[in-house]
């Protein structure tokens, strides 16, 4: 069953929104997301992978309604979000939640742990006032934070604990779908595994669906069911984790996998780094966005943008396949 469907989503940001720039028609746009379509089934984890600035986080935040999409449709349980009433949208917030990357900026420094978790419970009337305390303690217990810390402030916790509190806040609304925006990349390596396992345990327990945003491929391999590789606001390859990790097809996916250093005796030879830089997202390149860095690029790649097409049980956007 399709829980979430994203159809041809585009999101552009104005760079220079000043009065004068508008007057002189010099208002340029950053093309963060350029026509992305995918769907997520209930209970599965889809990972969005790509280098920084490729629009992963923008997709996550647009789905949650933090940004208005420039173009395209997002549907939840088959219903288009743009056609929902204000009340329905408010109700939808209970269903879709977010876990943030930086645990140091995701908690209000002036709220106690209790208030941080209480706020959404009260505004959405999740439980009655009498049950509230037990509910919060139960949540904290689920994410592995001691219940005696209720009256502490965020600055008294370590990064890992803060992230657990952030997760408890998201879970307080009993959501079905969670956008996890690089939830472990800001944490110590020793804590990363704990949080990752916590997320997977919670997924089993509450039957959660994840959109997992990441750039660390080993993490992605651990947690996802399906993977989407993004570049400059486009999906280049999307399919089952097993297929893609077994045999990456798109030249960019291959380059990404080759860029993982491995510990061997001949360390220097076993990984390569892509040359060149990501093109300017203000002035998008013609044809395939990857042609400037692709070693297989041909004439057609410079002119025509490749569509996503079925190859070996997954979808790839490349003229060479």
């Amino acid at each position: 069953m399709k829980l979430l469907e994203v159809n041809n989503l585009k999101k552009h940001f104005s760079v220079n929104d000043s009065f004068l720039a508008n007057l002189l028609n010099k208002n340029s746009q950053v093309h963060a997301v350029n026509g992305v379509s995918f769907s997520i089934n209930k209970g599965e984890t889809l990972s969005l992978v790509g280098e920084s600035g490729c629009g992963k986080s923008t997709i996550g935040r647009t789905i949650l309604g933090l940004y208005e999409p420039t173009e395209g449709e997002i549907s939840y349980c088959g219903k288009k979000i743009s056609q929902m009433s204000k009340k329905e949208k408010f109700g939808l917030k209970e269903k879709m939640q977010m876990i943030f990357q930086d645990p140091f900026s995701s908690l209000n420094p002036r709220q106690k742990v209790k208030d941080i978790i209480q706020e959404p419970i009260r505004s959405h009337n999740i439980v009655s006032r009498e049950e509230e305390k037990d509910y919060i303690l139960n949540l904290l217990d689920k994410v592995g934070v001691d219940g005696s810390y209720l009256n502490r402030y965020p600055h008294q916790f370590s990064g890992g604990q803060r992230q657990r509190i952030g997760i408890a806040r998201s879970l307080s609304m009993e959501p079905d779908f969670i956008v996890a925006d690089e939830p472990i990349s800001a944490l110590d390596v020793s804590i990363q595994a704990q949080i990752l396992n916590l997320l997977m345990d919670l997924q089993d327990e509450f039957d959660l669906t994840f959109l997992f945003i990441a750039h660390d491929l080993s993490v992605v391999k651990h947690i996802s069911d399906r993977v989407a590789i993004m570049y400059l606001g486009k999906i280049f390859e999307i399919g089952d984790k097993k297929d893609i990790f077994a045999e990456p097809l798109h030249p960019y996916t291959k380059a990404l996998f080759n860029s993982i250093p491995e510990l061997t005796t001949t360390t220097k030879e076993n990984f390569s780094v892509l040359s060149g830089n990501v093109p300017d997202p203000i002035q998008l390149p013609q044809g395939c966005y990857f042609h400037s860095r692709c070693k297989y690029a041909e004439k057609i790649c410079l002119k025509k943008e490749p569509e996503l097409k079925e190859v070996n049980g997954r979808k790839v956007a490349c003229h060479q396949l």
Partner: protein
Amino acid sequence: MYDENVETTKEIKSSPGTLVWRRFRHNRMALIGLGMLSIIVLISILAPLLATHDPNKIYMDKFRQPPNDEHILGTDSLGRDVWSRLVYGSRVSMTVGITAVAMYLLIGVTIGTLAAYFGGVVDMVLMRLTDIVMSFPFLLFALVIVATLEGEGNIWVVMGVIGLLGWTTNARLIRGQILSLRDKDYVQSARALGASHFRIIFKHLLPNAMAPVLVASTLSMAFAIMTEAALSFLGMGVPPTMASWGSMLSEANSRLVMDRMPWLWVPPGIAVLVSVLSINFVGDGLRDALDPKQKNNKEV
């Protein structure tokens, strides 16, 4: 496995407020400032007890008497007791200072918050308004308004004018703060949780944006006190009968008083100096305590 829930700190009270006070307490100048300021506030409250005479009573036989047993700071050109007028004058200064700061906060925070939070046209209009008010030559404009409203001698008009012209710094400060906080993850998270604009502004933005605004407000309180003194000195402030440090200072506009009768202008001068100085010390201390990242601040 390493357990991150180990107890690391002793169970001490450490709300943001307590932490600020703990840092403030270690700043000696700020403590002295706070002490002086409290004394001045106390004096203004207890004025009727501290004054030895009625501040407005004219002793016909005693013009410009130097300090003596009966009038400890002497008498002024109209034969009024200088000490009593000094004590009552603190009431004017404190009222003006507090009212002005309240107005700065109210107007400045409202305009700055609305501009930053809603952005776009709202921001444009409100900030241009701020720019316009900012470009008024302050003292001159204050004089003109007081004169056109025929408010000479009306302390409320004076306070209103000072308050209406001085909020611009606060507006700009709070706008900058809110702009930088608006995209913080905890604000995004509140939006994702469906919090209303009202809730986001009052629960998540303002409490975290107030620190530099509070500092600026203390400093502008000093400015308001000096402006009142200046207006009263020019005869546009409080009514001539009412005791105010500024109007007492205006006695010194004759050479004779300057040279020969220091008891008429030195005490109110020192009073203005001390109150402005101690407010500034408190402001500096607050700034250091609220923003521990700024240097010159040993870890406490």
